Structure formats: structure tokens, C-alpha cells
């Protein structure tokens, strides 16, 4: 009964283990992994005073600063949009869903236009109010500036990760606290927040891991110049050196930085799993027969709306304004009367051709569709083993499935690229290099940790009775999975599919590294345009990209059930009691 899901689980986990082993192995060989020899040179080269005095401290500030900013916005947002009667919740949630699709470099550019000592709109406004020549306030060349921009972007994932648990809290606990005389805020602080602590911690760890792995935003804001070096920029420059003549991969150094980046993430992962383990012992969140209680905000509703609007203005409004502005300008200039006269739709002419034509669109659709299906399939298989079986290795499987999130995506992409090159030499019958398949493998490995979290949660909510009835009727496990369990967790599956598709749509780092003449995708085309100096066309492409994803997000929300509040939570809710009993 457990053989099929177990086999598929180990199939994927073997790939993950092999990639991790490859990254680690690279750190001990002098050159290419096929060449003989053993060295510790890569470790000793990397271990410099700069690493200790600036790279690691900067990375820590960026990681923890991002958590702080993200939590500052995400926690109130999650509560307001999931547990209160705030107006326009569906629309607000849908707009938050667009945040991950906006290219990070656009948001960073937007903040440079806002906060820069020389050109910043806010700086200039402040300077004229204060009657001083300039205001020394900038997002550049400071780890705090990087953390601010990353925090705004990563608020959305925290919001969605907390939304589910918030929705699933049994309201009787809060009601009991209220009856005991606790005030609203005390209930929130003493009852609600502790109950969703695993969710909050999970969201924070996810944020930390993501923040320290992102390259392009720190690069724009100071890492590329060496002023604010972070681990992600160090690994990036190891595998993409700046000097062309020295253009050889620092194979080992890339592995060392990847390993270093994994250490805090693994530590955080260990803490997360410990909290989850403890949470199971006093689990009070049941899956049956209740509806979460909504707090009536009364006259304070407008304060809540203002807070949501403030976040949306900073994280969505500003970058979309910059995107649209850049897409309408022949050459990006600061807003002015003179610049207004130059606005045109020139960058939208022949946009499809500039993005690579229908081939690129088709490749993108294929990657989005296939990665979603593969992530759902493998996450379901792994979660089935973890949640539904008594296999002794299930806890190990669960941990291994989470492991890729602790490793920077660039390290995986680098390992895959190397494996593809070696495969084209030694296993020519295994075409990996330059295929869509290799991009899909990278995405699959990268998304499975999140997929298994959603699936674990969803499967945990479906009672065993349902499968037992089907078994009694003589139904086999694969049929039970397909015809009983999957329909019951359909909203979760749809949510996971859409979220995965959106992340695949906008992912650029891995795709960039693995792209060849035949497997280019839209995000790589847009990045290529930006990198090559066609900012206007890149912005026009990004506007199209954000628009498509916005429409898709609204459509999915409609499909999932109107309100998007706590999609995960909704996705994992059990059917009404009348059907399950």
C-alpha cells in the first residue's frame, strides 16, 4: 500500500541528496569535479577577515532585518484580512498576491528613485521643506536599506503562510478567554498569537532563508560594488566572475559559499522542526466543525484600511508606478514636466518579438504547468508517506524534503549546470543541458519544501475514516488518493498549483543559469533586456507579466471561493460535517 508513494518520495529525495552531495564535493576538488585531487584551498581562500567582518554581519542584518520588516507588516495584515470584518478584504488579499510577481529589481529601482541623496523624490521634498541642500537618506550601501526592500517583498509569503493557521484556530479558545475577562488585545497576545506560533516561526524562517539567498536586490543596492557584500553576492560572483579574462568558475568557492549559506538555514530549520514537534504535543487546533470568529473592528476599521493601503502603496503601488513610468519613457528619467512630454507607447511596439516570440511564451507556459503538476505530485507522495503511513523513515523523509530550502537556489542551479555538462560528455543519451527539463528539475527541487508543508497540512485535516471506508469497499490506494483524498483537498491543491506557477513564472536566478538557445523563458528574457540596457522594453514586459498574473490571481480567488483569506487554511479545511460523517 505504501510502496508507490514511498518509491516516488525516494526518487525525488535521491535527486536532492545527489545535488547536495555534489555541492559539498565541489568544495574539496581543485578544478572540475571530474578532475582528480583533493584540496582544502577553497575553504581557506574563502575564510578571510572580510568574510567575518563584513560578509557574515551584513548577511545577518539583511536576514533578520527582513524578518523584522516582513513581520511588522505581515502579522497585522494577516490578522486584519483573515480574522476581522475589514472591508475590501478579497481585493486587498488579491493585490498582496501580486507582490511576488513584481520583479525585485524594479522595486529596488523604485526605492532608489524615492530615497537617494542625489535624486530621491522624498529626499528632495524633505530638503525643500527643511531648507537644506540635501538629505542624507538612502536605501543604497546599507544592509538596512536592503532589508527594507526585501522585507516589503517578503511580507507576502509570510502573510500567506500565517493566514492558514489563523483561519484554523478554534474560536472557542478565544471566546473562553474573552468570557474570562480578557480584553481583545490580550486575547490576541496571550491566546491567538501563541496558537499560530509554529506558523509565524515557519514564515519567519522561510523569510530568512529566502532573504539571504536573493542576489539581485542586494546587488543593485550595494553588494555589487562591494560596499555591502552579502553571502548571496559572494556566491554569485564566484560563479559569474566580473573580470572576463578570469572568466572561469570558482567551482569550489561557489560550493563553500553555498554551504556557509546553508548553515544558518539548517539551524533555523532545526528550530522550526522542534517547535512543530512540541506543537503536536499540545495541539488544540482541530479540523472539525467550526468557523473562525471575525472581530468587529467597528469605528477602527478605517485605521486597518489605512494600514493595508500603506503597505500596498509601498510594496505594490510604487513599483507598479515605476514599472509603468519606465515602460512609457524612451530613457528612464525622473518625473518632471519635461519628462512627461516624452511619454509614449514606443516600448510596447514589437514587445512580443523583443521578449523572444511565441517560443518563449510557450516555454514559460510549459514550465509553469509542468512544475506545478510535478510539485503537486511529488509533494503529495511525500506528504502521504509522512502523514498517512507508519513507515519508520517518514520523519527523515520529511526533513529531507525541507532541506532544499536551506540551500541557496543558485547552488542547486550551479550543481545542475555542472551535472548537465558532465552528462553531455559521459551520458550523451541523457539530454539535460539546455533543456526545459533541467529548469523544471531545479524548480521542482526548490519548491518541494513549500509544497510538502501545504500538503502535510492539508492531508492532516482529512480524517482517516474516509479512506478506511473506501478500503473496505475494496478500493486500491492509488484510486483512494485520486478519487477520495485529492478531491477533498482540491482547494489546497489549486492554491499550491497557482503559487508554484507564479513563482516559476517570475523566477530568474536559476533559469538564467540553466538557460540555453532552446529553453529561454519569459523572466530570463525580461532580465536580459534589463541587463542589456533596454530598461523601457524590460519594463513593458514586466507590466505585461504583472497584468497577466494579476488577472490569474483574481481568477483563482474566484475559483477557490471568493474570499482569499488564508488560502492555505481554506484549502486544508475539512468538508462540512454532514458529508464527512
Amino acid at each position, binding site marked *: 500500500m505504501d510502496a508507490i508513494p514511498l518509491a516516488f518520495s525516494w526518487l525525488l529525495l535521491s535527486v536532492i541528496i545527489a545535488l547536495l552531495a555534489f555541492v559539498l564535493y565541489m568544495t574539496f576538488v581543485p578544478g572540475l569535479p571530474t578532475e582528480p585531487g583533493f584540496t582544502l584551498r577553497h575553504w581557506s581562500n574563502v575564510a578571510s577577515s572580510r568574510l567575518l567582518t563584513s560578509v557574515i554581519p551584513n548577511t545577518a542584518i539583511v536576514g533578520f532585518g527582513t524578518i523584522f520588516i516582513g513581520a511588522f507588516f505581515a502579522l497585522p495584515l494577516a490578522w486584519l484580512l483573515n480574522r476581522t470584518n475589514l472591508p475590501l478584504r478579497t481585493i486587498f488579499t488579491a493585490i498582496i498576491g501580486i507582490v511576488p510577481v513584481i520583479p525585485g529589481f524594479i522595486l529596488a529601482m523604485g526605492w532608489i528613485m524615492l530615497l537617494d541623496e542625489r535624486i530621491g523624490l522624498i529626499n528632495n521634498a524633505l530638503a525643500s521643506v527643511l531648507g537644506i541642500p540635501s538629505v542624507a537618506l538612502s536605501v543604497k550601501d546599507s544592509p538596512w536599506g536592503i532589508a527594507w526592500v526585501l522585507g516589503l517583498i517578503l511580507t507576502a509569503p509570510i502573510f500567506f503562510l500565517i493566514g492558514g493557521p489563523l483561519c484554523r484556530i478554534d474560536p472557542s479558545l478565544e471566546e473562553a478567554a474573552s468570557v474570562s475577562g480578557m480584553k481583545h488585545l490580550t486575547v490576541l497576545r496571550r491566546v491567538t498569537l501563541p496558537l499560530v506560533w509554529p506558523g509565524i516561526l515557519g514564515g519567519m524562517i522561510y523569510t530568512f532563508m529566502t532573504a539571504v539567498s536573493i542576489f539581485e536586490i542586494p*546587488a543593485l543596492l550595494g553588494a555589487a560594488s*562591494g560596499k555591502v557584500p552579502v553571502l548571496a553576492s559572494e556566491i554569485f560572483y564566484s560563479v559569474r*566572475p566580473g573580470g*572576463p579574462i578570469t572568466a*572561469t568558475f570558482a567551482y569550489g568557492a561557489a560550493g563553500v559559499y553555498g554551504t556557509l549559506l546553508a548553515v544558518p538555514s539548517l539551524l533555523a530549520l532545526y528550530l522550526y522542526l522542534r517547535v512543530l514537534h512540541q506543537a503536536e504535543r499540545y495541539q488544540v487546533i482541530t479540523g472539525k466543525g467550526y468557523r473562525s470568529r471575525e472581530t468587529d473592528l467597528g469605528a477602527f476599521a478605517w485605521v486597518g484600511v489605512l494600514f493595508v493601503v500603506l503597505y500596498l502603496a509601498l510594496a505594490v503601488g510604487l513599483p507598479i508606478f515605476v514599472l509603468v513610468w519606465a515602460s512609457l519613457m*524612451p530613457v528612464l528619467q525622473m518625473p518632471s514636466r519635461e519628462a512627461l512630454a516624452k511619454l509614449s507607447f514606443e516600448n510596447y511596439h514589437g514587445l512580443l518579438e523583443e521578449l523572444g516570440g511565441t517560443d518563449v511564451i510557450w516555454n514559460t507556459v510549459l514550465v509553469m504547468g509542468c512544475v506545478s503538476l510535478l510539485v503537486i505530485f511529488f509533494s503529495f507522495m511525500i506528504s502521504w508517506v509522512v502523514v498517512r503511513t507508519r513507515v519508520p523513515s517518514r520523519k527523515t523523509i520529511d526533513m529531507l524534503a525541507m532541506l532544499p530550502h536551506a540551500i541557496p537556489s543558485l547552488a542547486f542551479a550551479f550543481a545542475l*549546470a555542472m551535472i548537465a555538462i558532465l552528462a553531455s*560528455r559521459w551520458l550523451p543519451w541523457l539530454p539535460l543541458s539546455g533543456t526545459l527539463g533541467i529548469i523544471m528539475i531545479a524548480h521542482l527541487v526548490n519548491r518541494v519544501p513549500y509544497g510538502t508543508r501545504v500538503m502535510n497540512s492539508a492531508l492532516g485535516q482529512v480524517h482517516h475514516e474516509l479512506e478506511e471506508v473506501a478500503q473496505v*469497499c475494496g478500493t486500491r490506494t492509488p484510486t483512494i488518493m485520486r478519487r477520495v483524498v485529492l478531491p477533498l483537498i482540491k482547494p489546497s491543491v489549486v492554491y499550491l498549483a497557482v503559487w508554484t506557477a507564479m513563482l516559476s513564472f517570475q523566477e530568474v536566478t536559476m533559469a538564467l543559469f540553466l538557460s540555453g538557445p532552446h529553453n529561454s523563458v519569459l523572466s530570463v528574457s525580461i532580465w536580459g533586456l534589463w541587463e542589456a540596457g*533596454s530598461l523601457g522594453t524590460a519594463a513593458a514586459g514586466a507590466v505585461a507579466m504583472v497584468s497577466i498574473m494579476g488577472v490569474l490571481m483574481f481568477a483563482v480567488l474566484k475559483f477557490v471561493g471568493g474570499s482569499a483569506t488564508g488560502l492555505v487554511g481554506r484549502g486544508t479545511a475539512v468538508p462540512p460535517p454532514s458529508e464527512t460523517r
Partner: protein
Amino acid sequence: MMRILREVRRPRSVRLPWQILVFLLLPTLFVTDFGAKPFSMKLAVAAESPKGKQALDALVAKAKQEGELVATIQSSWSKGLIQPLTDAFKKRFGLDIKITIANVNSARHFPVAIAETQAGAPATYDVVQGDDAETMSIVGAEATQKVSNWATLLAEINPLVRSGKVRSDAISRGPFQDHSFVFMANVKQLIYNTKSISEKDLPRTHKDLTDPKYKGKFAQPPWTSHWEIAPVAFDKFDRNEWLEVVRRAGKNSAAVIGESAAVQRVVLGEFAFALAQDRYTRQILAKDPKAPIAARFFDDYNELNQVYYSVRTRARHPAAGTLWALWMTTADAQKIWQPSDLQAVPYGDSDLDREFRQGIEKSKARVIGFLDNEKTIELLKWYRTEEGRKYLDALAKAIRGE
């Protein structure tokens, strides 16, 4: 509940087994080219006959047999150029082969190309383009293959060479001879925002970039091409002293970013000036003639950056790749890409090429290329040595202020 169970028990004979189809089709995702021919290990593309026409005919026949070409173009070129270039190339040689052209950032791809060569794997691209330093890296790593009889073939393909207006060694010489063919060039200079800084306030020499008055006012790229030609630019040159100059300039710079992005941010007003190629000024002014941007040469030296096509070692379609590399040196190809890219061809005859040469002459700027003379060629060769590579590594780090 019972409804679900009834559904489960329903006979499945009428249902399409789509899952099976999906799994059967999954391997096709790993196919890059359904019509690809088996990998050929042919190395040298040699025309057997010394006569130009015969040599070319033989090469074209081989290209037809290969049936395909995978080539790169500059990452900054418009994708709109791909079809006209492909059509003109096919027409010139009467080819009816599948051609894939991709915008590729050489700095990003060349490490992959070198890794492919080291691993003995076939090349992703048959023919690739890159500037002096980039090309030196792949030629040095034996990631390019020799084109035998290239001068005869070039004379047959390029009318400027055939007519004697351009000597073949202007297109392939020095350490690149037989391997790489120049098809365009640019000069590294200062591009500045006319609203942020006046021409007279700009630094005159590279050393001036260390002046505290320029701190935080300029951007430079992470690559070494603005600094690496210096050893031949000065009579007295001390490598360590120069490294210190680069380091101080690196610490003085506001950002270390790609040239195109830096120039955009110069237009935005974020930086007063940037070290970049001459073509960006032309490109920005072509898009917006009123953009506040202008360029100036340094007084001490300005590097001439030439761009070459090279046929890759273990290329799958070496004959087609050779034809492409040689054809891209012609005025026919130039007419297609130059109007939008606005880079000059050093031996070219277009208005832009003449303006490019006259501009340098008129300004009396000291422009130095790696293939100018024996001294510069020696320097380029030195950069291939272990000592040279280490020096370049140190330069790259110094640019970031390390």
C-alpha cells in the same frame, strides 16, 4: 460520501488514461531539438582546395550536410535583428538549414564554454562572440577551434578583403589568428550627465578617479577592461602602484555595475558620470535626443575594445559556424545590425565607422587596442599566464575596493 465511493467503483473503461500519456510525454521536455543530427566530433573546418571559390563551395556543402547552426549575438542586440540576419545569411550561401540565434552575455556564458571544453563535452553554441579579453579566455582554454584556410575563405566572403581595401590580418591576427574574427569595436570612455557635471569638471586621467572630489559620483563596471590596458599606456608602470590606483578609484566609486545599467542611472541623475563604451551615448541620444548625456575621452588612454566571432571546439556544426563567423565581418551583415546597435566596425566603410575614426582623430584621444602592436599583443599573452591571471583577479577585486 456514498456518491464519492460510487464514483470510485465506476468502471474506468471509458476514461482516457491521461496520466499515462503525461508520463509518456514527460521525456520530450528534455529534448532541445527534435531534428538534431547526431553529434559530430569534426574539429577543423578546412577547405580542401586552396582556390577561394572551391574552398567556399566545399564549406557550404558541409554546412548543408550539418543542417543546423546555433550561434550567439550580443546580449544587447534587439531580437528583431535575428530574422533579417538569418535570412541574409541563408541567402548569401544558398543555405536551407535550421538556424538558432540567441542573445548571450559572453561574460556569463564563457565560463560554461570553458567548463564544457575541460569536460570534453560538445559545445552549446557553434559560434560565439566576445571582446578581446573574453575571447582570449576561451582561446587560451582551447575552447575555440582553428579555421584552416581562413584567409582564402575570408577573401571569398568579404568583398572588402577581396578588393584589398582591408587586409585579412586586420580581421584576424596576433594570438587570435586562425581562431577569431573581428566584426565590431567600441572605445571605453567617460559618459556623463550634462546637468550633473560640466565637461571641465570631469576627471582627465584614470588616476583622477581617486580624487576625493569624485567620491560617490561615478559608476564603473565590474570587468577589468577600463584598467587592464594600462601597462602599455605608460612608459613607467608599476603593477602594484596601479593596483592601488584602481583600489582607491574603486572605493571612490558610487557603484560597480554593468555599463548599460550605469549609463541609464547617469541619465537618471543618480551618478554624475560612468566609465562605459562610446556606443551607449549614441544609443541613448538615438532614443531621446534631449537626454542630458555626453561623452569624453580620458587624456591618458582609452581602451579600444574589439569584438570577435570564434568557432567553438567540439561545435556540432563547425562548417556553418565558420561561415557565420566570416560572414559577420561583411558589410552585408553590418548593414543589418549597425543601425540599431550603433557600434563601429574598425575596418568598416559606413558613415558611423568613418565618424568613429574621425572622432578619435579629431579629439586626439589616445586609443589603445590589444592587437595594436607587439607590446600590446605581448600584454594580452601575458594575461593568459598564471601570473597575468592573478593580476587580473587582483584588478577585479580592486575595482570593488578590495
